[in-house]
């Protein structure tokens, strides 16, 4: 194990509220939390005054679109990783819908290596379930699992694995290496040409609807399949009240299902589509206020396990057009924590310890990431996010690190600012700005 100069530096985080609780000092050295307590001696370490700050285990995103390889005009591993670090993330899972698709060991290793070289955050590739996301035959899941990228999460995200027999086989096959299938639940026939949530607003706007049942019917089928073959299912970006009910039912029956919600589905509704501004076009679509309430309740009571950003940057021309022509997706890495603070913490639904669970511990568990989502105690890997919950800031997409300017929160004032991000003991973010990447190969 080599120790690069950056990681050999020591930092004393003084007086941070761990998970929003007791104030503690954290001594970071050699990539781990070397000491905790009160009145910890600085002994040559750089002191970071964390008075008033909340310390969380470094955030983990299970759902990120980094676009590389193939769409470097939209995002690269480098720019996406910078955005992740600024958002407080120490690990992101790069979705497989790149070009070429991440459906071979070669592509996942390429993405993994790009992430290491960038050095802002762990980049864990997600492997495609089917070749080319075509939904026809299984990709070489085992080869990706055995590769240097050690893939454990498989998803055709963007597309639904809608063929029931293929979904069944995928769920069964990944048991061989304790993998998980992350399903983008969307019945394709029920969503042919769909533009937005089907309901009162789509009726008035004259847009083809994306009905809740198209999501719920796939989730219902998949939890039953997961039960039948006793495998693990993860449901990406749950967006409807009915989906929350089905997942709650499945969990009560002991089915191994986990679920994710995006920050935007915790807040925004289809009323925004009345503007016809494609910045609000996303898949699954923004739903109703009733759905937002059910998603928040589901996240608070544990029915929904994690917040995943579904960070989906697009070049400006993909949004500067008619709604029907526009690409689907929103950026999310640099606003996620603030949106969760606004929707979940400030509404009184959860505390900061729950934020640590849904944005770090649980996603790290689903992705089986070593060294992430650990409690902030002596001996843990030093992946730490420091948040100033009292700060307020106005969202300006032009000032973000992501290449995508498609933030649905543009112009809104959000609470909470990531002050520092420690990635394996190295501060990738300090004073709310990018510092330096971790360049040590041995880390």
């Amino acid at each position, binding site marked *: 194990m080599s120790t690069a100069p950056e990681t050999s530096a020591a930092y004393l985080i003084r007086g941070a509220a761990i998970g929003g609780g007791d104030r503690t000092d954290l001594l970071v050295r050699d990539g781990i939390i070397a000491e905790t307590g009160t009145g910890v001696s600085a002994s040559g370490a750089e002191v970071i005054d964390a008075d008033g700050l909340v310390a969380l285990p470094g955030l983990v995103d299970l759902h990120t679109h980094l676009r590389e390889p193939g769409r470097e005009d939209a995002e690269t591993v480098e720019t996406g990783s910078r955005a992740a670090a600024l958002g407080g993330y120490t690990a992101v899972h790069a979705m497989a819908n790149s070009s070429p698709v991440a459906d071979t060991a070669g592509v996942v290793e390429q993405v993994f290596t790009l992430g290491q070289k960038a050095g802002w955050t762990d980049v864990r590739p997600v492997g495609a379930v089917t070749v080319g996301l075509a939904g026809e035959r299984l990709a070489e899941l085992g080869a990706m699992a055995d590769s240097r990228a050690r893939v454990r999460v498989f998803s055709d995200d963007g597309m639904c694995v809608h063929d029931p027999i293929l979904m069944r086989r995928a769920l069964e096959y990944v048991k061989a290496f304790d993998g998980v299938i992350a399903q983008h639940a969307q019945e394709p026939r029920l969503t042919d040409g769909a533009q937005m949530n089907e309901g009162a607003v789509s009726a*008035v706007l004259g847009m083809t609807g994306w009905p809740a049942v198209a999501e719920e019917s796939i989730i219902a089928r998949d939890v039953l399949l997961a039960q039948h073959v006793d495998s693990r299912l993860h449901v990406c970006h749950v967006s409807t009240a009915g989906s929350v009910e089905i997942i709650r039912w499945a969990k009560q029956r002991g089915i191994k299902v986990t679920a994710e919600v995006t920050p935007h589905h915790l807040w925004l509704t289809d009323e925004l589509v009345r503007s016809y501004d494609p910045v609000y076009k996303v898949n699954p679509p923004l739903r109703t206020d009733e759905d937002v309430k059910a998603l928040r309740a589901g996240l608070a009571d544990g029915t929904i396990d994690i917040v995943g950003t579904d960070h989906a940057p697009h070049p400006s021309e993909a949004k500067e057009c008619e709604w029907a022509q526009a690409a689907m997706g929103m950026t999310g890495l640099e606003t996620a924590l603030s949106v969760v603070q606004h929707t979940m913490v400030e509404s009184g639904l959860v505390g900061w310890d729950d934020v640590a669970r849904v944005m770090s511990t649980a996603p790290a568990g689903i992705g089986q990431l070593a060294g992430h989502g650990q409690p902030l105690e002596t001996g843990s890997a030093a992946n730490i996010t420091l948040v100033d919950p009292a700060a307020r800031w106005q969202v300006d997409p032009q000032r973000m690190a992501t290449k995508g300017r498609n933030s649905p929160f543009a112009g809104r004032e959000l609470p909470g600012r990531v002050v520092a991000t420690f990635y394996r003991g190295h501060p990738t973010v300090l004073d709310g700005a990018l510092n330096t990447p971790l360049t040590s190969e041995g880390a």
Partner: protein
Amino acid sequence: MRHLLSTEDLDKAEAIRILDTAEEMAAVSEREVKKLPVLRGRTVVNLFFEDSTRTRISFEAAAKRLSADVINFAAKGSSVSKGESLKDTAQTLEAMGADAVVIRHWASGAPARLATSDWIDAAVVNAGDGTHEHPTQALLDAFTMRRNWARVNGTGSAGTDLAGMKVAVVGDVLHSRVARSNLWLLRTLGADVTLVAPPTLLPVGVEHWPCTVSYDLDETLAGGPDAVMMLRVQGERMNAAFFPSTREYSRRWGFDDRRLAALDAAGAKETIIMHPGPMNRGLEISAAAADSPRSTVLQQVRNGVSVRMAALYLLLSGDSTPAAPTQEATR
């Protein structure tokens, strides 16, 4: 009025002002010299992303009678269909000095997108967008209804609304921008609206709309509507399982000879039959119904020019007094 994008956001005073202005325009159109000088030197662009010769000609006639310069830009088969974006097209029109853009687009919301972006300063007139709205069609329909309603009530039409009128809108409501625009405007003007359609051709969410919904045309006709508006139905819809066959559709939801006879027998002699055109004779409307004295199809076409003159005039003249064109015309 900065743009005309939908009838949903027209209030009653604005709607009546457009209809009253259209009455004055109609008077002009009956003169020997049909032209007014009010928009001389102004440029109106007809930007059509979807073929619709009848709507384009109507707007073109309206603009020319107001002495505006007209540029027809058929975006189909031009650089636009080769991938040029709406943004670039809009900026091109802006550079050419367009004062108003009349836009027909297959995508719902495209006119609103044009109006709310910073790509162009011109006034935007929605000439039909996707399955969203077609406000000038609804205005010409309301104009036609208002004249007939005033005649029935023995009054003049200027300044009046449609309070107490019963209107049935029949057919493919789901895919109809005409139905949406008509519903909002008719409600604003005080009419009672019944939508009649197969359940498959009504949008999910219609239960929130300010109207009665019926699956039964005969029952609705028995209630004695003052106007029955038949919507165009595309026969190909049967291939996507919206209805089993065109014959079954016609039997249940078409205005056929049997229903025409029933209306006559019931003594509903003032009930008018409307259609936005183009008609599918034999599908949603029989030839006898389309050609009967009840039919207002040609009145609608004629009134379309007057209503579009009124809309362009109010958007571009910057003069809020509808009396102005009449004074000009009397010179």
